[in-house]
């Protein structure tokens, strides 16, 4: 009993401290609801220049690795805590509309009309790319060449064998087996799928008419794997298969990806450089609320299936400080987060686009 007493005391002390900490936070929140009065007084109250900031976000899984790295580094630099839940783009849009998070994230840009209806602002956060991956014996990465039309025909089931004249014509000299093409697609709804089928819709009228675009579509055939890792696992196991994943999954699993012909007619390989070229050549300036899908971008070196992630915040937030903190975080990420993005196979936004985003913040968001 006597040995337990000090332990008990220590425990209750910890509990008390914890409770006190809890009590402080809601008080700070309540104060910041009145931004003009509270924001300046709240800041000096905290020790030094460490911020007692906490932001919550939810949405796309695509950006999760990058956001968690960014928030970790941002936390080390400023003390602010960013809590991001990767529940999927659909969930992210629903959560920001319900007002339960400070920012939402989606791989599919919302139309300006839909944004206006809910009073939301939208801006891109990072760029990545989707690559077709194949499993053909002896084929090295980047050796197989596909055009958008042929890729669409393969996923439509019109091109059903590897030695089909359509594929052979693009790959003179490459030995192609006569085996059946096994198509692998995502079984779950996803931003990767959205960007992939958006591209196929742009380059193939037949695809647009029969399948269309969305985060999940009615696939004409093939098998579905759950997540990028599911598709990667299936393609690795099934001989003669073709699927699509984000570049990081293709390189990490050492899978044979295919080179593509872009809108300018050039043959390109997936890489940070070709993704960046696509992001830079896209016409961001004339896209209201940055509502633009950068697939099939016009640039000479642009990778055709480049994907952009978007962040959603309120234009006139109820709690202006939290949205201000969110924008501060992304400003920091755009300016100082390039190295982390490179390491994770994401492409930082071009400087010109960052300037456009910051101008957009200043003009459209009252925070």
């Amino acid at each position, binding site marked *: 009993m006597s040995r337990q007493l000090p332990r008990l005391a220590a425990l209750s002390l910890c509990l008390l401290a914890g409770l006190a900490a809890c009590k402080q936070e809601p008080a700070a929140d309540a104060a910041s609801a009145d931004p003009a009065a509270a924001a300046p007084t709240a800041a000096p109250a905290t020790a030094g220049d460490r911020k007692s900031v906490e932001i919550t976000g939810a949405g796309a899984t695509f950006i999760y690795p990058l956001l968690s790295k960014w928030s970790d580094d941002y936390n080390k630099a400023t003390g602010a805590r960013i809590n991001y839940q990767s*529940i*999927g*783009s*659909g*969930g992210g*849009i629903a959560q920001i509309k319900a007002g339960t998070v400070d920012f939402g994230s989606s791989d*599919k840009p919302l139309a300006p009309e839909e944004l206006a209806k809910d009073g939301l602002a939208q801006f891109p956060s990072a760029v990545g790319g989707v690559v077709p991956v194949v499993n053909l014996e002896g084929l090295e990465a980047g050796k197989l060449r596909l055009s958008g039309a042929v890729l669409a025909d393969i996923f439509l089931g019109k091109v059903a064998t590897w030695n089909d004249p359509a594929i052979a014509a693009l790959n003179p000299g490459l030995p192609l087996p006569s085996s*059946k093409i*096994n198509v692998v697609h995502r*079984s*779950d*709804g*996803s*931003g990767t799928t959205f960007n992939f089928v958006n591209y196929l819709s742009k380059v193939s009228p037949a695809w647009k008419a029969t*399948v*269309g*675009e*969305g*985060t*999940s*579509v*009615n*696939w004409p*055939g*093939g*098998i*579905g*794997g*759950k997540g990028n890792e*599911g598709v990667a*696992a*299936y393609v690795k*196991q*099934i001989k003669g298969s073709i699927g699509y994943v984000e570049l990081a999954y293709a390189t990490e699993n050492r899978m044979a990806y295919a080179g593509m012909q872009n809108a300018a007619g050039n043959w390109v390989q997936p890489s940070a450089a070709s993704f960046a070229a696509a992001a830079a050549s896209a016409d961001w300036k004339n896209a209201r609320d940055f509502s633009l899908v950068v697939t099939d971008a016009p640039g000479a070196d642009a990778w055709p299936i480049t994907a952009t992630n978007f962040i959603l915040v309120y234009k006139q937030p109820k709690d202006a400080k939290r949205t201000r903190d969110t924008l501060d975080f992304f400003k920091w990420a755009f300016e100082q987060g390039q190295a982390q993005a490179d390491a994770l196979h994401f492409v930082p936004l071009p400087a010109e686009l960052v300037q456009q985003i910051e101008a957009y913040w200043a003009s459209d968001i009252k925070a």
Partner: protein
Amino acid sequence: MNAIAPTAADDSRDLADIRTDNRFRWLVTGAGVFVLVSLAAAALSMLWGGRAAFQKFGIAFLWTDEWDAVQQQFGALVPIYGTLVTAFIAMLIAVPISFGIAFFLTEIAPKWLRTPVGAAIELLAGIPSIIYGMWGLFVLVPVLAEHVYPWVDANFGQIPFVGVLFAGPPLGLGMGTAGLVLAIMVIPFVSSVMREVFLTVPGRLKESAYALGATRWEVVWDVVLPYTRSAVIGGIFLGLGRALGETMAVTFVLGNAHSLTMSLLEPGNSIAATIANEFTEADSEMYRSSLIALGFVLFIVTFIVLSIARLMLRSLNKREGN
């Protein structure tokens, strides 16, 4: 605690006993009602969540095979079919094997072997389903795709009528594989119930049968099984319930394709796998509602299957004259 003098407290003690007894009765009634309330709450909230889908597609939701999030057309036939077929395959494999395991453990195995094997079965029952899924995908699927399915396709694929079940590309993924993984998952449940109830058969019954010259098979088939029949069927349906609702393991090996196919070698879909796959990115009202409606359908399918089991059991009992 009851340190009250017996002389003064007789009446009050009776009263206290009655009160405690009443309180206890309410407590256990509450526990019983809790089951009904949670059942009704789950069913009704799914029906409510899926009301938009049911309103738009009506009862035809059950036999439409289209599932198109772009055109907003949803029908549950493919997932319902996949759920029933995979569960049926699982039971077809699991029940005889479980019976064999229970038979072996209670009648044949030497005493020293019974405990470790019994413990191993219970351990198998405790393995999370995602582990079975990963094992299925990374170990079972390549073996089936390389060695088993090409042979099945070549040897059974051409048989008239039944052949369509076994014809198809050897992907290794599909309803057959899902059924196989499910079988391995439900065997521990079914066999451990069977083993437990086989042990409850009175020794004198079995000994009398042996004394009459019965073989081990005759003892188990004619004495042990009839004696434990209702419990054995209960165990089988516990396994069936698990097979119908299993999500993760099936998602890994089923192929997740919304296409209606007779072939067991081709990818299909199940209700639980569809919900798990698509719920996170269901970005329209009708899509989400259709998925919840699918959950309600699974509820109903399970309910119907288990009701049929009850009816079967009752008619069996009647025929036996119990």
